[in-house]
């Protein structure tokens, strides 16, 4: 069964643009313009796109914050806005800039209050909190008021806050934005463990593609309010032509760089001692085998395309 179903989801905003000294013209902008999305239980979905593409707006419609201008959405079988409070018991939300914690209270007290807000049985609450405490290293700052926490500490607190009621779906809007490397790693490995257990469906938006590579098999790319790619990361690479490359170092330079079927020569350096091929239809093994037949190979490496290049190409091609 699909936990999230969206069909033709749309959100229009009216903006007033300056037209002359005092006059304002009203203009309708579609932030989300017909998004279809199905997410199965236990999936980990990366939802990416450039600034203003409609990522956050989509998430807000799925969580019942914004009323869609058109289309249908169902999350856990419920209509988000109409059944907002019931849905809220079954989903968790981490919006980077919108804290669920009490600013002036120690972190631990926020967790205790959230138990009542979500009406969680004490036993379940304690078990989930214990798990988060050990996985996210919360103990050192559990007694610190939230206003005094570092960004990384607070984000770990927010993640815990969103999970204490055992949600079926966790929505994360930019969970690693602004975090240092260590905190990013902590958040990623936590989410990865959470996703691996298979009970929680994860939907995250991010600008940090390392998040996606680390966490999500499935990637949905949105631009100008429309889905432009929905599939695996490999399928995206395939489709947008960023390919793996084979780099070989030869003992003796070849007189002329060989032309190989199914691969393009991209570079030849050091008088032909180092060759770089981009793989098209040939496999890395075929290319290496052919080159090995022409001369002794000193070193071989295979370079994976950077997902950032792929996505940059995708954004600019539109």
């Amino acid at each position, binding site marked *: 069964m699909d936990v999230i179903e969206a069909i033709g989801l749309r959100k229009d905003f009216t903006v007033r643009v300056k037209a002359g000294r005092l006059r304002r013209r009203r203009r309708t902008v579609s932030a989300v313009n017909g998004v279809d999305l199905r997410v199965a239980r236990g999936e980990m979905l990366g939802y990416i796109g450039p600034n203003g593409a409609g990522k956050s*707006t989509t998430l807000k419609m799925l969580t019942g914050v914004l*009323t869609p201008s058109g289309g249908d959405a169902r999350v856990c079988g419920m209509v988000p806005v109409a059944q907002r409070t019931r849905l809220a018991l079954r989903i968790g939300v981490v919006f980077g800039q919108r804290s669920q914690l*009490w600013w*002036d209270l120690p972190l631990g007290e926020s967790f205790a209050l959230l138990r*009542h807000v979500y009406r969680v049985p004490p036993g379940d609450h304690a078990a989930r909190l214990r798990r988060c405490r050990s996985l996210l290293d919360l103990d050192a700052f559990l007694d610190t008021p939230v206003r005094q926490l570092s960004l990384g500490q607070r984000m770990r607190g927010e993640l815990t806050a969103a999970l204490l009621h055992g949600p079926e779906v966790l929505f994360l809007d930019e969970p690693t934005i602004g975090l240092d490397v260590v905190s990013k790693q902590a958040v990623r490995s936590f989410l990865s463990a959470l996703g691996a257990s298979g009970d929680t469906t994860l939907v995250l938006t991010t600008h940090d593609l390392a998040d996606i590579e680390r966490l999500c098999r499935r990637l949905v790319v949105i631009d100008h309010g429309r889905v432009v790619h929905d599939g695996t990361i490999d399928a995206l690479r395939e489709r947008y032509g960023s390919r793996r490359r084979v780099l070989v170092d030869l003992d003796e330079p070849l007189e002329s760089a060989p032309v190989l079927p199914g691969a393009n020569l991209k570079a030849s350096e050091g008088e032909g001692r180092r060759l770089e091929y981009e793989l098209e239809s040939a496999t890395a093994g075929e290319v290496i085998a052919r080159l090995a037949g022409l001369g002794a190979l000193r070193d071989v490496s295979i370079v994976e395309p950077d997902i950032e290049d792929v996505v940059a190409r995708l954004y600019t091609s539109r």
Partner: protein
Amino acid sequence: MADLRARPYWALFRGHARGQMSYRVSFAVDLVTNVSATALDVFTVLVLFGVTHTLGGFELREALVINTLAACGFALADLAVGNIEKIKVYVRTGLFDALLVRPLGALRQLLLMDMPIRKLSRGLFSVTVYAVALRLAPVDWTPARAWLAVAAPLGAVAFFAAVFVCTASVAFWWTDSGEVGNAFTYGGRDFTSYPVSVYSGWFRSLFAYGLGFAFVAYYPALVLLGRSDPLGLPSWVGWLAPLVSLPATAVAALVWRAGVRHYASTGS
């Protein structure tokens, strides 16, 4: 069941109250200064009677009943829902999102999470002043009048609360609404604080009957004081006046719901 449903809100309130207490000194100072607001209202009436002997046909003791009834209703409504004015900030910054993802009603959350406990002193003071005004006024006490003396301030609280919610909801449509709503909340309170007979023309028609402010303090006070309306309405109007809070709260609830549906959030 009622207990189970109220508990999450009680938790919200506790969290907020504890947060407030973490700033002890400022809290104590606010408790004291808030009393002065109501004291000033009463003082204004006394000053007015320093220059005149009657106000719209009412002597000082009578005018004070109207004035303190209005002040009492307003101060308690301000305590309970006055901080809804902060909705402007929540809407402009998009913080309202955080309330909408919780399994609770947005309005109740907003009120409880930010309840100005420091205004408690003002609420208590205004109730005391109302009781004193009733004691001094020439009231011919009957069980029905005693009942009305309690129902009238409760109706006034509900009415002002509705006004607060309506005017604050403007922020959902007009983010830079600024102080526009205050013209009606504070303007309405000031209108209510004096006998309606001192006003005239379209202004009186609009505020007194169009928006219903005359039924908050003036008409109930007429019945309490055993006076007939100089403007000609029969006395049963005064007995039923507290009920005007019912349509007012219904309108407020509709406006609020429409506002939440219209909420546009912000980019993040």
